[in-house]
Each structure stands twice: as structure tokens, then as C-alpha cells.
């Protein structure tokens, strides 16, 4: 808690310091931001379960990213990156490479986690990493998105040093540890994926036998 407070203080300080030659862009909503937040919060049925409504809460990273339209001044970005790096947790056995075949499945699964009264996911619906939504991975899967960079030949290009393995794990666990306000979700931080599932995706990226590194 104390650490959080200290970081928040540091952030606020950074926010009030005159920006260094950075063209200031108006925060979304301008002078109506506060009204807009209230209006948004008032848009939901009262009988939404509490744990659904918590999904609207914003942590410091989300709030700051919104304020800067996902393009924070570098010093603020660095603060966020530190804050996020501190959240990364590892599997108990310390092994960061799992089973690439499991990772391949997780990379393709885009379901899970939908809530609401109209079209929620059935209970127990598997959640995946949905990597293909944004990234090219194995060559054989042509239905890939382009929001993120191509990860085809990820391991083949980078080799499988401990540093690269740890980078891949950390990036999936908390993408904002490297690039504040990136489009990529923080899969580990939100427990969207377990540490073990993340190791499977790391294997999918790194293993020489993985289709990511073939073709």
C-alpha cells in the first residue's frame, strides 16, 4: 500500500512538472471528463453483480494511459513501466518454458470472459490468449490480425537464451512493463492467464519444434 502511495505521489509530481518540449494534447473529454465518468458509471443496470462492475475500475496505468491517449510523455511512461514490472510473478517451480502444444491451443482461443445479460459466455468457458487476434504466429494460420507485430519465427530469430525466454514471459504477463500504454493486454496481472499457461505460450514462441519456428 505504501509503495503504491509513493508511486502515485511520484506520478502526480511528474504530471505537474512542465512537460519537456512535448506538445500537450488535451485529455479525452476535456473539461467534461469528470461528468463523462459519472455518466458512464450511471449507464449500467443496478443488478449487475459487483464483480462484473469492478471491471470498470481503472488502475493507475489505465487512468494515465487514457489521459494521454495511450501516448504518455516518456518520464511518465517510464514510471508506469516500473510500476508494472514490479507486478510480475513467476511459476512456483521457476520453469518458464511449458508445452508448446498447449500454447498453440491457447494462442487460438478468443472466447471466454464475456459477461452481461445479452450474450455472456457459458460458465466455465475456456479463456485463451487469443494471440492470433493481433499477431501472426505459425505460418499455417492465415487468419491473423495486425494490431501487434508478427511473431513468426520468434525463437528462430532471437535464439533461446534465458534473457529472451524471460522477456517473452514478462511481456505476456505484463506488457506494460516494457511499453507503457501498449495495446496488448496484461494477461498475468489480470489473472486472465495463469503463470503456467503463460509458460505454454512462451514455449509456443520459443520451442524449435513449435510451428511458430518452422516453415
Amino acid at each position, binding site marked *: 500500500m505504501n509503495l503504491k502511495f509513493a508511486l502515485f505521489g511520484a506520478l502526480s509530481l511528474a504530471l505537474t512538472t512542465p512537460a519537456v518540449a512535448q506538445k500537450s494534447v488535451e485529455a479525452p473529454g476535456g473539461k467534461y471528463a469528470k461528468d463523462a465518468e459519472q*455518466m*458512464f458509471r450511471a449507464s449500467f443496470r443496478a443488478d449487475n453483480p459487483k464483480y462484473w462492475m469492478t*471491471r*470498470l475500475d481503472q488502475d493507475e496505468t489505465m487512468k494515465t494511459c487514457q489521459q494521454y*491517449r495511450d501516448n504518455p510523455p516518456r518520464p511518465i511512461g517510464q514510471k508506469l513501466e516500473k510500476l508494472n514490472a514490479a507486478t510480475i510473478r513467476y511459476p512456483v517451480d521457476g520453469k518458464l518454458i511449458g508445452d508448446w502444444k498447449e500454447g498453440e491451443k491457447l494462442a487460438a482461443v478468443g472466447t471466454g470472459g464475456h459477461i452481461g445479460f445479452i450474450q455472456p459466455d457459458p460458465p466455465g468457458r475456456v479463456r485463451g490468449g487469443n494471440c492470433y487476434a493481433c499477431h501472426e504466429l505459425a505460418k499455417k494460420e492465415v487468419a491473423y490480425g495486425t494490431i501487434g507485430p508478427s511473431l513468426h519465427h520468434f525463437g528462430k530469430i532471437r535464439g533461446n537464451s534465458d534473457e529472451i525466454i524471460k522477456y517473452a514471459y514478462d511481456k505476456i504477463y505484463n506488457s506494460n512493463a516494457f511499453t507503457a500504454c501498449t495495446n496488448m493486454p496484461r494477461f498475468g496481472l489480470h489473472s486472465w492467464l495463469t503463470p503456467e499457461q503463460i509458460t505454454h505460450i512462451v514455449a509456443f514462441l520459443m520451442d524449435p519444434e513449435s510451428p511458430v519456428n518452422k516453415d
Partner: protein
Amino acid sequence: MVQRMLKSVVGIALACAFGGPAIAQDSKVADELAKYREALADGNPADLLEAKGEGLWAEKRGPKKASLEQCDMGLGPGKLEGAYAQLPRYFKDTGKVMDVESRLVHCMVTLQGFTQAEVTRQWFSKPGTESDIEALVTFIGAKSNGMKINVPATHPEEAKMAKMGEYIFYRRSGPQDFSCSICHGQEGKRIRLQELGNLTTKDGAGFAMKTWPSYRVSQGAVWTMQRRLIDCMRQARWPEPNYLADSIIALETYLQKTATGTVMETPGIKR
């Protein structure tokens, strides 16, 4: 009508041609998608709904046994030509910025005597259950086909709504850290094979807004803009806002303002 279809076919073909990075594989898939859409555009199922909406508009219904022909969608009672294209807007009689759907519901309540709950119970269709609102909005939308979206948001209340919509567009939250802008704030990107418009530009917002209401092939139903945006929230893994919620109207105002000047091609047909 034929001209309209032709236009949207050319539009889709062009969009596909200029859409993503031109890797051979990608463009082949895009070509197939374009052909599929072309085939469907020859007979948009939304045209049936438009005809149904036309009937509902003129029919005397509700406790007051009145039609909707005196409904003021912003251009005066009964004036529907171009009305959809200039919504949302501020209405003096309610003191609120309203979109086509909230205004339609307002008319059904005040002119026909329905309760709001009755009118909105079936605000979207399900297999085997049709929605009067979908039909009426499709009809009202078609009356703006070929006209320019015109939401300058010059009234202070409209300007405020547009800014509040912008706030929601960039607001990040939830277990995937999403905001609208994550997927819809840059040029030339795809999610899987689906091309994503940059809704912060006139062209991107225009391309997105001009074809609603739209028949959605994947859903087998016509979707209104409210339905579309509420589903965006679901896909972002957030709770879903209420039908006709101000936050949805604010997003619409922001998007229509950005899209202003774009020619409507509605009803549309989409994935």
C-alpha cells in the same frame, strides 16, 4: 435502390483493395470476402425489415391508437428525409441529446401511449422474436440513404455529449485493458481477418457509421447502432450499458460528429 447496392458493392470492393498490407494471401482472403458480400448485397434481408418498418410507422397503434407520422425526429413532425443523418441532436422538448432510437421510443411513448418498458422489451430481435424497433430504425435510416451525415454538434449540449463520447472512446478498463481506441485508433489494422477502421478520422468513422443499421450476416439479423455499441462493450469484457444509456448516445455523437460529411449507405450489410 439498385444504385445504392451498386454503390455499396463498389465501396466494399474499394475498401478491401485499399484495406490491409498487400500480402498475396491476405488480399486473396479479402477478395473472397468481397465476393461474398457482393453476392449478399444483391438481396439485403434488411430491405424486408425496412418495408415492415414503413408499415409500423403509419399504423395506428398503442393505447392512443395513433401512428408515428407526427413524430419529430429533429427536422419537424413527420419529416424523415435526412433525419437519421443528423442524429444525435439536442431536443428542446426533452432537454436532452437524443439518438434515433431514444427519440423513436420517446415518440412511441408520447404519441402512441406505450410505456417505455413495453416499447423497449424487444429492443433487438432474437431467433423467432422480431423487434419493432429494429424495423422502424431500419425504415428511418433508409430515409437518409444517399445523404450526408451532419452532426456538427454546435449546440452546447451536443458539444458536451461529443466530448463525453470521446472520453469513453479512450477509457481503458477491464481484464484485457481495452478501450475503443485500442482497436479503432490506428490506420490499416486487422483483428484476425476483420479490417478495423480508424474511428478518430472522418474517413474511418464515416466508413463505420454510414452503413448502419446493417444486416449482420454472422448474426442473421439487422443491428442498430445501439445494439452494435453495446456489443462492443461486451466484447471488451465490460458489463453492458443499458439500452438508450447516455454513454451510448455520447459515443454515437462523437462518432457521427467525426463522420460528418460522409454519405449514408443504409441499410448496410456486414460480416
